[in-house]
Structure formats: C-alpha cells, structure tokens
C-alpha cells in the first residue's frame, strides 16, 4: 500500500516542512533533523513594513527645477506630449506675450500649463527618454490613490514640480549621469559668449 499513497505523502511532507519553517521553533526542529531550511516567512506585512525598491523603480513622472520652482528645465517643446503612447500629457505653452512673442525666464521659454493624467499614464518612461532637456524624470512614489478622478488624479504643473535635489536623493546614479550631461552642455555653451576684449596692440609702435 505504501507505493500507491507515496506521492501524496511526499507532497504532504513538503507542506509540513514549509509550515514548520515559518516558526522559529520549527526551524530549530528542522535543523536538528538536518533538513535545509529557508529563511522563514516570505510575506511582508504591508503597510507596516514596506518593500525596498530598486533605484530604477518608476511610477509617475515629475518635472525638475533647479533652485527655485520658476527655474524649471522644461521649455514646452511638446516632444513628450507627442511621443506619449496613451497621450496623457497636456501642455499649453510656451508662454507668449500680447504680440505672440515667446516670454523667457532664466533664458528659456516655459509652459503655461502642464498636466499629466495619472489614470492614463502607463509608466512606460518614453517621455523621459525623448526629452532633450532632461526636464522630466520618473518618480518612485506609488501610494497616490485618490477618491476623486479629476481633481486629484490629474497632476498640474504645481504638483509635478520637484527640486533637483529630490531627484538626486531618489536616484543617485541616474542623477549623476544627468548632471554630468547638463554640466558638459553648459561648458560647451560658455565659450559661445563673447570673449573678453583683448587689448588691441597699438598700431605701428
């Protein structure tokens, strides 16, 4: 009779071992019988303990500003709006004056409105990939549920703006690469400024 019930008994043994593994005294018993044990319960109790996420974890984008919120890197080129697959970005801009000429702040144009609809966003990160100015990056906050779809789920420009130090804090390696790239661009742009006036050599001295 043993061989007909044998597979069932083996299965029951595996479950019993898992059961004992979840208790410290059970692990002691199993080690005493020299059976290899795993670490105990694999489940963590959210929200008391939260899982540590990888650095690259992405959920919803945010706009980056340096120093003050009006020094945002975005110039309203609308490339991310065009490339976003589910079309969840809505940009109104760049800001123009009454004659229709673009206004500039800190030497750049800026958007009037920048809305991203969280209920549509796919977290695909294509907006970050295509932005030529490193103005939009992915945030890793995911506890963003709300009870109202239009007021709380559509993030306007104010809600989206976050400082560059925040970006460096949540994604150090990526921020380091971005900062390097931006510094290199600035260094290339600096010699384009008019060189200081060299003193003219006196004629025929």
């Amino acid at each position: 009779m043993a061989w007909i019930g044998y597979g069932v008994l083996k299965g029951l043994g595996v479950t019993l071992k898992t059961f004992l593994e979840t208790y410290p005294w059970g692990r002691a018993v199993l080690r005493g019988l020299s059976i290899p044990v795993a670490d105990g319960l694999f489940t963590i109790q959210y929200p008391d303990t939260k899982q540590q996420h990888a650095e690259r974890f992405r959920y919803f984008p945010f706009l980056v500003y340096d120093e003050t919120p009006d020094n945002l890197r975005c110039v309203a080129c609308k490339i991310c709006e065009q490339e976003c697959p589910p079309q969840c970005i809505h940009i109104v801009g760049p800001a123009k004056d009454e004659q229709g000429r673009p206004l500039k702040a800190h030497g750049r144009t800026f958007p009037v409105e920048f809305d991203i609809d969280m209920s549509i966003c796919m977290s695909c990160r294509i907006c970050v990939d295509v932005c030529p100015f490193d103005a939009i990056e992915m945030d890793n906050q995911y506890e963003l549920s709300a009870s109202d779809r239009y007021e709380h789920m559509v993030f306007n420009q104010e809600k989206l703006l976050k400082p560059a130090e925040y970006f460096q804090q949540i994604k150090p390696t990526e921020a380091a690469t971005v900062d390097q790239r931006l510094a290199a661009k600035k260094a290339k742009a600096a010699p384009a400024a008019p060189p200081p006036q060299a003193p003219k050599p006196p004629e025929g001295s």
Partner: protein
Amino acid sequence: MEPKVSTSPTVETQTLEVNLGPQHPSTHGVFRMLATLDGENIVKLKPVMGYMHRNHEKIGEGLTYIGCFPYTDRLDYFCAMTSNLGLSLAIEKLAGIQVPERGEYIRVIMAELTRLVNHTAVTGFLLNDMGAFGTPLLYAFREREKILDLFELASGSRMMCNYVRPGGVREDLPDGFLEQARALVDNFPRFLDEFERLLTENEIVKQRTQRVGILPRDLAVNASITGPMLRASGVNYDIRKVDGYSIYPRFPFKVPLGTVGDTYDRYYIRILEMRESVKILRQALREISDSSPSISPKGVALVKAPRTFRPPKGEAYGRIEAPKGELGFYLVSDGTPQPYRYHIRAPSFVNLTVLEDLCIGHKVADTIIILGAVDIVLCEVDR
C-alpha cells in the same frame, strides 16, 4: 437550437448546453466556452473569445515604432521581456540594425528568466485549478517574486518592463544585478526539486492529468500549434534551435519532448524546460562581459528620437520562442515613422483553436484542466 435528443431502447436523454464563463474563476481571463454536455461528457465545445479585444494592432498604426513597446508589455503580461524582444527582432530585420554582444547576452538572460517566470506561474495556476487550494501557486509565486525583483533592478518595473529595444536594451544592467542573478540561478534547482516532490508523483495529480486531452502529432502540426504543447506531442520544433536567432546557437541546451501528448506531459515538459533554462542562464551569466555596449548607436538614436526613424519600405516578420509558443510580429513599413501594418501572431490564440478536439469525450471537470495546460493569457488571445 434544440437540444439533441438521443433515444436508446430504454432511456431517453437530452443534451444540456452550459456556458463556462465569461465570468469564471478559472478561465484565466474573460473567456467563454459554450459546452454541450451529455451527462458529464462533453459532446461539443465552442470557445468564444474577443471579450478582451483592445485594438492593439490599430493603435499601433498610429504610434511610432518605439511607442508600440509599452503595448507589447501588456500583450502577455507574464512575459513582458520576450514580447519586447519579438518586436525588436522584427524592427531590426526591417531596418538592418545590429546588436552588440553584451546587448545580446542581456537579452538572452532576460528571455530565459521570463521563461522561468512564466512556467512557474502556469504550473501553479494549473494546480490551483485542480483544487490544491493555492499552495503550489504560492510556492511558484515566491520564486517569481525573486525574479521580478531582478526585473525591477534592471528596468524599473516588475511586470511591464519595456526594456528590450531594437539594437539592444534600453539601459545597461546596474551594479549588483549579476550577483543577485547568479544567486537566484544557483538556488533555483532546489526550488524545482521541492516543487516536483510536491506534485510530480502525486497520485491525485496523475489521475487527473494523465490520458486527459491527448493531442495527436498530426493534428498539432496541422493546426500550427507551437511551444510546449507541440513538444509534448513529440514534435521537435523549438524556434531557438530552428531559427537560431540572437546568440542561442552558442548555448548547448536540449529540447525535451513528450511521448503521449496529454496534460501531464504538457505540465512535465514545462518543468524540464525550466531546468534547461537554468543551464542556459548559468552559461550566459558566466560569459557576459563588459567588452561591448549594451545597445547599438542606431538603437540609441531610436530611443532618443523615435520620429527620426524611417525604416525602408518593406515588410518583416520577427519571431521568437516565447514561453507560450511562437510569438511573431509582422510589420509592413511605408517609409514613415509609423508602421503601416502591425500584426501580432499570438501563440495563445492559435493554440486555443484545437480546444474542442482536446475536450470532446472528456468530462466537464477536465475542460478546466485542459485549458490550464494550454497556457493562455487572454490579453494575448484577444490583443
């Protein structure tokens, strides 16, 4: 339609038409089976799909080639990486993009990890349908969690990875990925042994799955079945060996074949395939080197500025051995940044067409088991 009335000399019986689904805990999604029953036996079965159609192919015609990638993640949500890989292969064929060596190694590692993820999840779900109240499923998911942590480390997202791109991968692997992957691969055979001890010789599992849903070789080949279902019927056809795409010819792995072609074979072939995948992973993790970039320059340009990518006019069909079968992408380009026609050959859809032949003569309870072993994901069936 009137129920068929069969009269035997002593007893008159009627057949009963029953709808299994679309709201059903075990049909792996919104899927309906219109079954005609004679007592407990199935006389006729009509699978009705389409409840999850989301216009994927039409949406793709309005997006750039890169814009289609997040949608391929959502085709077969267990295997996001391999779906990305299929589309990448098709685009590379269309535009003639080469992939550097490190990019190829990373792709192979991700594809085989996806195979492990998929096969553990499918086996767990099959046993869940059989009534083992979730225990094998949760053991499989525990291993799957560790692999999903690896995916998160590399791509930023556990399931909808959007990582493999034409020309390589989107970004190089972070530090610590290779060590964690090696630790996982070293531990995986022990998990497989425990899983097998729980299930493979279990008499109840054997009684439920052996001789159930036998798929004859000829029917499998004629109906274009691919994947583990085909190999369980004894046909030696694995696209990794036949096409030799990417760098698979460098890995000497074997293809397990079944003998009978019933549900038990399909389940066990998947376990054997997982062992072969572990071998491939060990070799790839050993051989990967820093000598080349992980994406070709054309690929970088494609990622940064999708609208500048105008492939030459023509068509290409790129196919891979996805964990569920042959996943193929057919692209027709007319020179613009958007594809003119974007068609997906989904393995689950094609494998489902033989469901009636598999189920006739068996009982209602077997239908669910047979469907579980066919391994469908409705998002792929209906796109």
